[in-house]
């Protein structure tokens, strides 16, 4: 929390920092089990996200650094969302995912529905035998990129790195440490249909696969 001078906090409680509603009910008074249809304005999110990207951009020199920053901004959200979404599950299925497939399904269905109001479009395992630790979550048109056109000189950038950070937070929180990156694949063979198509590449740490192998035997 920010530290205000002692005089300031005492004298002007209304002006400093958070504003409290007149009935005294803050976000912490609301029940965790909210209705499923609590939606936010996409326009206000778009403006906020646009400022987040410009903020990050002013503080970096390269594209990778920019993606890193966006990733870091999303990471704590993922950690917290994992807890929140599991709490909202019916009591019977209220366990955290224990296998890679269960985790990825949880991300594809629960996380995506909570954040974007629909499921992710596809889930794939890397077909390359050299990289069995790589999985792909595919979104044909990520909501965060709805209004963003990346300039040509930054064509490798995908602002969905922020969503990748959220996914990484969920994986880390569920004890499946991973690196998640976002890649644009529109503009290639089937890119005409979905120019904003994005692949979230989930690369798990070796110990996760090791544990997964032991699980399979047991």
């Amino acid at each position, binding site marked *: 929390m920010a530290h205000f001078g002692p005089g300031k906090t005492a004298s002007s409680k209304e002006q400093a920092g958070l504003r409290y509603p007149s009935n005294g009910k803050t976000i912490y008074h609301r029940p965790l089990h909210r209705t499923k249809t609590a939606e936010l304005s996409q*326009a206000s999110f*778009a403006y906020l996200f*646009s400022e987040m*990207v410009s903020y990050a951009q002013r503080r970096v020199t390269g594209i990778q650094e920019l993606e890193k920053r966006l990733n870091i901004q999303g990471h704590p959200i993922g950690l917290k969302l994992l807890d929140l979404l599991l709490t909202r599950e019916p009591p019977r299925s209220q366990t955290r995912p224990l296998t890679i497939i269960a985790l990825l399904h949880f991300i594809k269905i629960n996380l995506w529905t909570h954040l974007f109001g629909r499921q992710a479009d596809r889930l794939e395992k890397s077909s390359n035998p050299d990289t069995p630790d790589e999985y792909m979550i595919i979104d044909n048109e990520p909501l965060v990129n709805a*209004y*963003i*056109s990346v300039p040509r000189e*930054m064509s490798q950038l995908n602002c969905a790195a922020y969503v990748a950070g959220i996914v990484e937070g969920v994986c880390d929180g569920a004890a499946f440490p991973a690196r998640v990156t976002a890649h644009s694949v529109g503009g290639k063979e089937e890119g005409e249909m979905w120019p904003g198509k994005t692949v979230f590449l989930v690369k798990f740490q070796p110990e996760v696969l090791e544990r997964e192998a032991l699980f399979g035997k047991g």
Partner: protein
Amino acid sequence: MTVFALIIINKAGGLIYNRTFHEGGLNKISTNDYLVLAGTFHGVHAITARLNPLKPRVGNRSSTSSSSGPGGLLTRPEPPSGLEVLESENFRMQCFTTLTGVKFLLFTDPTQANVDLTMRRVYDMYTDYVMKNPFYQLEMPVRCDMFDRKLGSYIREINNR
């Protein structure tokens, strides 16, 4: 029924977007000429806005400066609108000025109906795909793929009707 071209002029009179949708509707002129057109129109628009008398709100004649309306609330006179339509035998140019001073010029067939509606949609797209894009710098030329794409498909739909 055709939309020929769209021009966007920033509040300083600079050309920031210029696109032709229909070949053969208008003669081709160079980019430099488009820049001159934008600057000239900007100037003419400013002068015509000054010609336009300010009308105080109806029922509020007593206060000369029209600064306080009923109930003591501040009311402003209608903002002066400059030149809005320019018509020639073969095309009609409609101008729309946003509250922030950006001008959209739409060149259409003289018989084109519902230009206001088209203009509104174009403005919507501008606010969505240009203003919400973190890589767009205000007052600079518009280079947003998404805007180009959406605008293109919308105008194509109108022109093919």
